[in-house]
């Protein structure tokens, strides 16, 4: 990767970036994208969500997975942070808990690439206790 020290350098490598992006944009139908949301509230950040999000952005791009990685707030599963929600095209979202880098890699390789379920799924019918 060329060194970018200033905005002038960034301007210079724009063409190179454009070429890389064109390849990806050809398959940029949002309906066909895997959507990954990373829980980035205090609980998530303190548990390592930043590293997990960085890994997911880099790994999905490198492995050619048509995906969008975004952040979300606390999903209420503070005990299981870092949490990620993965929505495969045409499927219901699945929330994974206790996602470290190893688990994130497993989610990409097994769930996203092959459609196999992996350990750590937080059931959708799980409800936090409401004392009100």
């Amino acid at each position, binding site marked *: 990767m060329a060194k970018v020290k200033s905005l002038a350098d960034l301007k210079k490598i724009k063409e190179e970036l454009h070429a890389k992006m064109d390849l990806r944009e050809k398959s940029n139908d949002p309906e066909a994208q895997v959507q990954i949301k990373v829980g980035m509230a205090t609980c998530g950040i303190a548990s390592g969500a930043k590293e997990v999000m960085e890994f997911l952005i880099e790994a999905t791009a490198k492995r050619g997975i048509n995906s969008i990685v975004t952040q979300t707030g606390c999903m*209420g599963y503070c005990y299981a942070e870092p949490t990620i929600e993965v929505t495969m095209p045409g499927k219901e979202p699945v929330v994974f808990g206790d996602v470290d880098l190893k688990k994130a890699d497993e989610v990409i390789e097994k769930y996203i690439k092959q459609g196999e379920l992996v350990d750590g799924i937080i059931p959708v019918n799980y409800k936090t206790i409401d004392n009100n």
Partner: protein
Amino acid sequence: MKDLSMHIMDIIQNSVRAEASLVELKITESMKEDLFSISIKDNGFGMSDEVLAKAIDPFFTTRTTRKVGLGLSLLKQNAEMTGGKMEISSKEGVGTELEAVFSHKHLDRPSLGDIAGTMVLLVGANPEMDFLYQHITDEGEYVFDTKEVKEVLDGMPISDPNIMQYLKEMIKENLNTILYR
């Protein structure tokens, strides 16, 4: 929180939730004056006096998913552990401003951590927002302004993984010239 960049990431999430379009982060470090200050200002929807009064209470939150709100109280506690302080002001419809002051040389002051990675993640995850990050030390000053970056990118998405990687390197390179080693 492991380091101050994580606190910054956490506090700016509040600005994201407050639908701010601009977040200004200013870090001022001075070994000479034994000062490490973090100032975050947004133009989000702000807080009422009533909410502001309770904002640093760890058992108060405006969220409904859980009953604690630890972000601000953790930062305040961290600042106070070094003999510093945290102040927050807000006006509904105008925005919120926060400043946390630490003793630079105090043993309990967490390190800054990966601020370049933090900024780039915030920018990539919120491409519609603008961020102005200013870092001042005794050695000099660096300013990262997403408005300028977007102008250079000329319509290319700032959230693209390759662009994010370049921006992270750019921030790191520039900070290396002004940060203490």
